[in-house]
């Protein structure tokens, strides 16, 4: 079977949904961050697949590279914040970090 | 108009000065306006053009907004009234307001400036601007220096007027837009916008926007709810300004804007307007009768009196219009005076409950006689200004609609009942309680005495007022 655009799109859609699901349901902060990574990478797959099969140009690749860099930056900050949460709360269960309400 | 400018500029600098400065400022404004009227009297009454003074400068030209003030006979009369009551309101606050005087007088002068602005603005944006400007200080006046339920009253006042004001603003924008689309020039100027053509439905919709704002201010009966609270809770000067001036802006708005802009819609609405006015007369009188709080009672008489204005405005003839203007002026004087008198009594006794008074005549004859005069004025005794006004309104509207007018005249009878009731309950009958009440002081005599003079003058010789507004009335009726 020839692997075509549709396959990539399906994969990316699955990844996107899984990521979203993870962000919403997981309690562990690190798991939530992993969900985020999945969502970002789903978009990345889209970009590259479109660039390849859409018979298009290099712009998709550029976008993907930038996204990878930014995802790394975001993860760095995110982990720093999670570390701080651990220091302050002694756990990283985000359901229990809920001082702010109203 | 000069007075307006003086009062405005002075008002903004006045923050930290005491009552003397505000008195002087308003007095200067009043004298200037008076001198202007005296020297130009012939010109005012005989000139064929409606506008006496016209001042225009650009403000936001990109949107067709200019700082455009103009004054005709109607504005002039109302400005005189404003400044006159302004002087009095400073005088009566002399002793009543003991704390935060600087801010108090600041607010007072801003209201006066706003009201004068409303009476002179002929750019709709500017008009709305002043319309809102006068609300804020009034809100503070009620909210800070008011009586026991001041916050509630201030809120109610503000929300009512603000909501209706915004609808008017939408209507102004609609007018602006339709005019701009048909003629190609976008402008907020009164003179540009006059004579804009609409589809009937649109015209009616826009007019309702304007009318709603004016009707809340006037107040017309289903929308009068804020008034008793605001009047009752406001300090005396606040009640005076509310009754004497702010209510007039509603009437002024209808005459100046609502009718000339939308003549067709106005014709459609006229009979309903008259009916609403009549309901206001009767309903206000009935409620006034059943009040035990003196201030509330006077407030409801305002509702009733303003019913006459509403009735006359929609009659569309000179007689009724002359009556309306007279009613605006005399109501300002007589109801203002009643509020002042009630304020004096409150100052002395710290109660406004009608049931706790009685038989005070022997103790305070001056206060009592003043009260009698204005109670009589309020019921429309010949020889006092209100009689002329109500008579003119009724005879004018009689031509327009006999049935409604006949019903409305019952209001006169009711007026007699409630007015006399005030006097009878407070000053006659058995003494229910001992009050240690000094009679009026020299300052209070000056205040009330000047009001008495004016009300008599208007009762015996109302011609100057009528002459001054005649050209305006002719003009307004010309749009119909």
């Amino acid at each position, binding site marked *: 079977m020839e692997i075509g655009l549709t396959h990539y799109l399906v994969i990316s859609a699955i990844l996107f949904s899984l990521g979203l699901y993870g962000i919403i349901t997981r309690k562990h902060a690190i798991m*939530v961050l992993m969900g985020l990574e999945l969502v970002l990478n789903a978009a990345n797959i*889209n970009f590259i697949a479109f660039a390849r099969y859409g018979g298009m140009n290099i712009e998709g690749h550029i976008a993907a590279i930038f996204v990878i860099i930014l995802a790394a930056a975001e993860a760095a900050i995110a982990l720093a914040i999670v570390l701080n949460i651990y220091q302050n709360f002694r756990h990283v269960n985000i359901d229990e970090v809920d001082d*702010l309400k109203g | 108009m000069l007075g307006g400018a003086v009062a405005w500029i002075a008002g903004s600098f006045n923050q930290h000065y005491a009552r003397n400065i505000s008195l002087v400022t308003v007095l200067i404004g009043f004298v200037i306006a008076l001198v202007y009227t005296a020297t130009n009297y012939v010109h005012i009454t005989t000139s064929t053009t409606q506008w006496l003074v016209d001042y225009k400068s650009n403000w936001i030209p990109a949107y067709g907004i200019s700082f455009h003030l103009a004054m005709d006979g109607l504005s002039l009369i109302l400005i005189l009234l404003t400044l006159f009551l302004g002087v009095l309101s400073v005088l009566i606050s002399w002793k009543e307001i003991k704390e935060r005087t600087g801010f108090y007088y600041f607010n007072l002068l801003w209201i006066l400036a706003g009201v004068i602005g409303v009476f002179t603005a002929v750019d709709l*944006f500017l008009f709305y601007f002043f319309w809102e400007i006068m609300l804020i200080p009034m809100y503070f006046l009620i909210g800070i220096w008011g009586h026991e339920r001041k916050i509630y009253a201030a*809120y109610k006042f503000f929300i009512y007027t603000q909501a209706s004001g915004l*609808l008017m603003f939408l209507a102004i924008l609609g007018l602006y837009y339709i005019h701009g689309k048909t003629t190609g020039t976008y402008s907020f100027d009164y003179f540009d916008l006059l004579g804009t053509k609409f589809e009937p439905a649109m015209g009616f919709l826009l007019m309702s926007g304007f009318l709603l704002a004016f009707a809340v201010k006037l107040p017309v009966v289903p929308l009068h709810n804020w008034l008793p609270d605001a009047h009752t809770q406001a300090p005396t000067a606040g009640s005076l300004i509310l009754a004497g001036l702010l209510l007039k802006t509603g009437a002024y708005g209808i005459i100046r804007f609502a009718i000339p802009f939308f003549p067709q819609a106005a014709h459609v609405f006229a009979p309903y307007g008259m009916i609403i006015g009549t309901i206001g007369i009767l309903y206000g009188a009935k409620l006034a009768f059943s009040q035990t709080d003196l201030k509330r009672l006077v407030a409801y008489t305002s509702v009733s009196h303003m019913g006459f204005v509403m009735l006359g405005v929609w009659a569309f003839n000179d007689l009724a219009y002359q009556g309306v203007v007279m009613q605006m002026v005399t109501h300002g004087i007589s109801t203002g005076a009643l509020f002042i008198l009630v304020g004096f009594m409150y100052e002395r006794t710290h109660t406004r409950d009608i049931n706790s008074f009685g038989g005070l005549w022997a103790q305070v004859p001056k206060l009592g006689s003043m009260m009698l005069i204005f109670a009589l004025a309020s019921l429309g005794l010949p020889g006092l200004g209100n009689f002329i006004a109500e008579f003119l309104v009724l005879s004018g509207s009689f031509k327009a609609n006999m049935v409604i007018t006949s019903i409305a005249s019952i209001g006169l009878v009711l007026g007699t009942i409630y007015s006399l009731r005030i006097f009878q309950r407070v000053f006659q009958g058995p003494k229910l309680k001992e009050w240690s009440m000094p009679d009026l002081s020299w300052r209070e005599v000056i205040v009330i005495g000047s009001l008495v003079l004016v009300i008599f003058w208007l009762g015996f010789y109302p011609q100057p007022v009528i002459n001054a507004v005649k050209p305006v009335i002719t003009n307004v009726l010309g749009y119909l």
Partner: protein
Amino acid sequence: MTMNKIITTQELLQLMPFLLMLAGPVILLVIIAIKRNHLFSWFFTLMTFAGVLVTVIANFQQLPLNIAMLTVDKFSLLYTGIFAIVGIVITLLSHNYLEKTSDHKEEFYLLLVFATLGSSLMVASNDFVSLFLSLEVLSVSLYSMIAYLRNQDRAIEAGLKYLVLAAMSSAVLLFGIALVYFETGALSYAAIGAKLGKTGFTPYLVAGFAMIIAGAGFKMSVVPFHWWTSDVYQGANSPVTSFIATVSKGGMVGAMIRMFTIIPGLENNAVVLVLTIIAAASMFLGNILALQQTNLKRLLAYSSIAHLGYILIAFISFGNGGTQAATFYLLAYFATTLGAFGIIAFLSTSEGEAENISFYKGLYWRKPALAAFMTLVMFSLAGIPLTSGFVGKFFVATSGVKADLWVLLFFLAINSVIGVYYYLRVVVMMFSNKDNQVETIVCRKGVSAGMIALVFVAVMILYLGVYPSGIMELIQKSAIN
């Protein structure tokens, strides 16, 4: 794209505002590494922003420059200039605040400048890649700014919440961009616009734009993407909150204006419908939720949702002077919001923020000048004449009238009344009597930097409210194309 091209001196000069914002924090970073000094960092940041402002003014009359996915034209320079001014005000406010609350103060400023850079670049972006990049520069700086006071539970929590939601919204935005890319084969606005002119809207494109709007809506905090707003507003410290409320939202509005000017996205009824619903929902929900708040920061958070709804009205009436109205409203809103959070920052102590409305009870009798200023701010938020908020609303309403958006305008009127109610509550609180008042406000005597900022903001509010023509002409001159 401009490849294989050496940048000329002229172009370099035109890029100066952005380069300064890049260089400034980098230099500061090095200096901090050598020696920490709060006052110096503070002053250095002020100078950076001042330099940006000067270069913006110097370049303002230049012809537009398209370079590396950025457009440096009057529009982006105007926004950059505004952001720089806001940056100065926030810097002025921060000094006192950080002195009181934080033990490590210097890095805050470089994050501030970086975030401002992100916002400015967003407005200058003419390509989805640069849009996304600058958005992330802004977001990543914001994460750390929100969680800056790292020993405060609330700040950390707000930071995490913002991070998770912001990252998710960026991902959604990215997905939308990918869909648009798939349909048009291009990422620059101009190419997409040209393509759209030929092919029209396909379902994919509509879906793509919907996702882009969702991502942007998150940054602008409009309903239904507003969940983070109140928590983050409350949790972050006041200077940061004022930054989120102004520069961050403004950058997104500016970016959207540019995007939809080049890509005629608003010619599609579905897109307009979505925006209309968002605007209406934002106004109502924001105002109604704000009614119930007793915390001033949360109140301002919900009110900001409503204000963005008002801006959307102007945005929907795009061609009818709507973009200018939106920009003006944004400016007016900036001044007002800075004022509100400025007061909070000014009155906050190391023990906590001055965020409870009851804190302001009787303020007028203790600090009349501050109370008068707060009253001015509240009136401006409520849109009462003489203040910038009124004129802003007027411009928005005018553009709405021209675009025949009567339903939305009617909503605007209703919501203004609701708004008046809760803004007045704050005012009433300040003017009510001071009985049973235990707290006393500790406030430094004399002129402080924060004071200067507040005076400046007050002057701006009044200036925009009384004489808006000058600024409006500037905005009109800076329109794209």
